């Protein structure tokens, strides 16, 4: 297992399309990271560069301290698992044994390794079956097993759960997480699905328009997004982002007024206009008449049921907020009282979108 280090990676496709615009990042040894971003953000290009399937226009790729930029995928010994499970037209056993036979390992060692991996992936009772006869979840297990037997330097998984039905997806996700923990593999998985990234990985690199915007733990990315794009992209619903301004040490947004005199200096360095961010679950909503002076009256424009919870679309004072609440007695058009949990308020630079607080 190795640490994967990317240094100033750029990639320009023919026609002058710049897919990756200067990426520097280190995926530490034995960590499980997600490369997350919307389609077209450059994550697939970056993955191919790590695997050695694509040579970057500029920049270097290191495995630990060795420069592997010019090495072929075989020489890099990276295991790849794709969206569509690739199995060979042979038995599950032969599929798993194949990479070892190619390397001319002795027969009893092949058998030992195959059995080990089959045990891990719960494929033991399926070894004699034809691999193509398995369901998508089973075939993906075989593909993962075939990658595992080779003891690769690192794993790259490209949207590995997309084409697997929801029931076996859960089982397979749990399995991969377990394997990563047990074998301490360096794993990077590429996904456009934030739920999957938050569910599986220990680290998330959020990518957009060819750049890595933030690389951190799921909790930090969710609570302290580096900029307004991450705030929008992570979480359902997106973080509420509304205009606000700084006046006399107070942050004013619609009819909300928050005393920020303790950080006013930091803010003032960025001007007087900002974007306030707050998550839907960090708004408190009450149908009682003004529970406390700082609560603000807003109109409930729409109630979106989420099943166990409600998502209230609120408008008032020129701003629009979504609040997540328990199921409550309320109708569209009603007025409610709203409060922001102050410690959960984030402030972004209006021009750059970068988070300040």
């Amino acid at each position, binding site marked *: 297992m190795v640490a994967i280090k990317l240094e100033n990676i750029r990639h320009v496709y023919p026609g002058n399309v710049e897919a990756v615009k200067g990426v520097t990042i280190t995926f530490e040894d034995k960590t499980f990271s997600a490369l997350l971003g*919307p*389609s077209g953000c450059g994550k697939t290009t970056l993955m191919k560069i790590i695997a050695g399937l694509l040579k970057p226009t500029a920049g270097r790729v290191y495995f630990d301290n060795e420069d592997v930029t010019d090495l072929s995928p075989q020489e890099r010994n990276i295991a790849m698992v794709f969206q569509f499970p690739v199995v060979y037209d042979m038995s599950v056993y032969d599929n798993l044994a194949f990479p070892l036979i190619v390397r001319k390992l002795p027969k009893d060692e092949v058998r030992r390794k195959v059995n080990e991996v089959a045990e891990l992936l719960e494929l033991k009772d399926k070894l004699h079956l034809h691999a193509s006869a398995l369901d998508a979840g089973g075939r993906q297990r075989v593909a993962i097993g075939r990658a595992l037997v080779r003891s690769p330097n690192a794993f790259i998984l490209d949207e590995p759960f997309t084409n697997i039905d929801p029931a076996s997806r*859960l089982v397979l*996700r*749990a399995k991969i*997480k*377990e394997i990563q*923990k047990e074998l301490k593999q360096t794993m990077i998985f590429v996904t*456009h*699905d*934030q*739920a999957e990234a*938050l*569910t599986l990985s220990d680290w998330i690199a959020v990518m957009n328009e060819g750049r890595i915007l933030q690389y951190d733990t*799921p*909790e930090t990315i*969710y609570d302290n997004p580096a900029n307004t794009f991450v705030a*929008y*992209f992570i*979480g*359902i*619903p*997106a973080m509420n982002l509304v205009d606000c301004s700084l006046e006399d040490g107070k942050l004013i947004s619609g009819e909300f007024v928050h005393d920020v005199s303790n950080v006013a200096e930091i803010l003032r360095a960025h001007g007087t206009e900002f974007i306030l961010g707050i*998550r*839907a*679950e960090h708004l408190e909503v009450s149908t009682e008449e003004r529970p406390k002076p700082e609560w603000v009256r807003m109109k409930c424009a*729409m109630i*979106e*049921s*989420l*099943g*166990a*919870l409600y*998502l209230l*679309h609120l408008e008032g004072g020129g701003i629009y907020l979504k609040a*997540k609440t328990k199921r409550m007695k309320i109708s569209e058009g009603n007025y409610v009282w709203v409060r922001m949990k102050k410690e959960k308020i984030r402030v972004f630079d209006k021009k750059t979108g970068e988070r300040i607080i």
Partner: protein
Amino acid sequence: MVSVRVSSISKAFAGRKILDDVSFEVKDGSFTSILGPVGAGKTTLLRIIAGVEYPDKGSIYFGDKDVTDVPARLRNVSMVYQSFALYPHMTVYENIASPLIIKNLPKQEIDKRVNEVAELLKISHLLNRFPRELSGGEAQRVAIARALAKNADVYLFDEPLTNLDYKIRESMRSELRRIFEELGGTIVYATSDPVDTFAMAQDVVILYGGRVMQTGPVEEVYENPKNIHTSRILARPPMNLLEVELRREGDKLYLDIYGNLVDVSHLRSFLKEDEYIVGIRPEHISFVDEGGEELIKFPSTVIMTEIEGSESIIHLEWKGIRLVMYYPYIKRLLPGQNVVVGVEPNKLHIFSKETGELISKYGR
């Protein structure tokens, strides 16, 4: 606008029953969701309402009129499919206008109508583009605009959001509702995702194995599931179902939930069998202390935490049984971690093991 009545519809393909005596009514101008898992018969049902499929038995009424024998093109319905096909050689404008051109409407009216729906779907700036120049979300908006342009009596949707990524789904859900509130029209919306139903529909028809399980206003059906199928289908995540035994001790009656005894003596007149299924909503399970409150406790091991958007779905194992818990914030518990969770006894649903019908809810 018109109401739709589906009356005793049955349909089989190659001897396999797809729909079995399906009846329900869609109110004039309502947004009704047909909710059921993959293979429940949703698409076939929509096709029969549209008139592109003919039922083996039963009738379809639009208002008071029996349209069972009326061909699709004379029914004035509009349908949007899961995988939407736009004409690649036509601009967005021409794509939206195509059903109106077929109808031979005057050019001026076509123009007015196209601009109206384009405005509604916020695609006015895309009218001169070709489909290849659109993102997935934009293309689906165009497909929906084309369906709406027709000014149909009934709009049929077959999982139109399934192939879109989650950020677009998130915004489309609230937008579709706004659009239909402005436009009016009777909407039948088939989906396997309860999130769609909760977010958009007034009424729901729960379809399972080709049969109607329950119909009614979404909130009412959610609060009062008639059977185990509805309890799992109109829920997110599905209700936990545990097989339990009924114990009689003296004049007391207990549900034996794998060693947790719950006094149900007051339900004596309803509980005549020896075995039942207990249903627990994932959102009714919470973290508890070891302390002595009156909770049913499950000291469990974490299998996996799934983060869905801004919520956590925690999969637990307790005495070899899987429990799913819903937590409204982000909380990542690691596999193998031990936690104690519990549920209030009055939150239990009790179902008949034999028929799956609801017997008692919340201890009543």
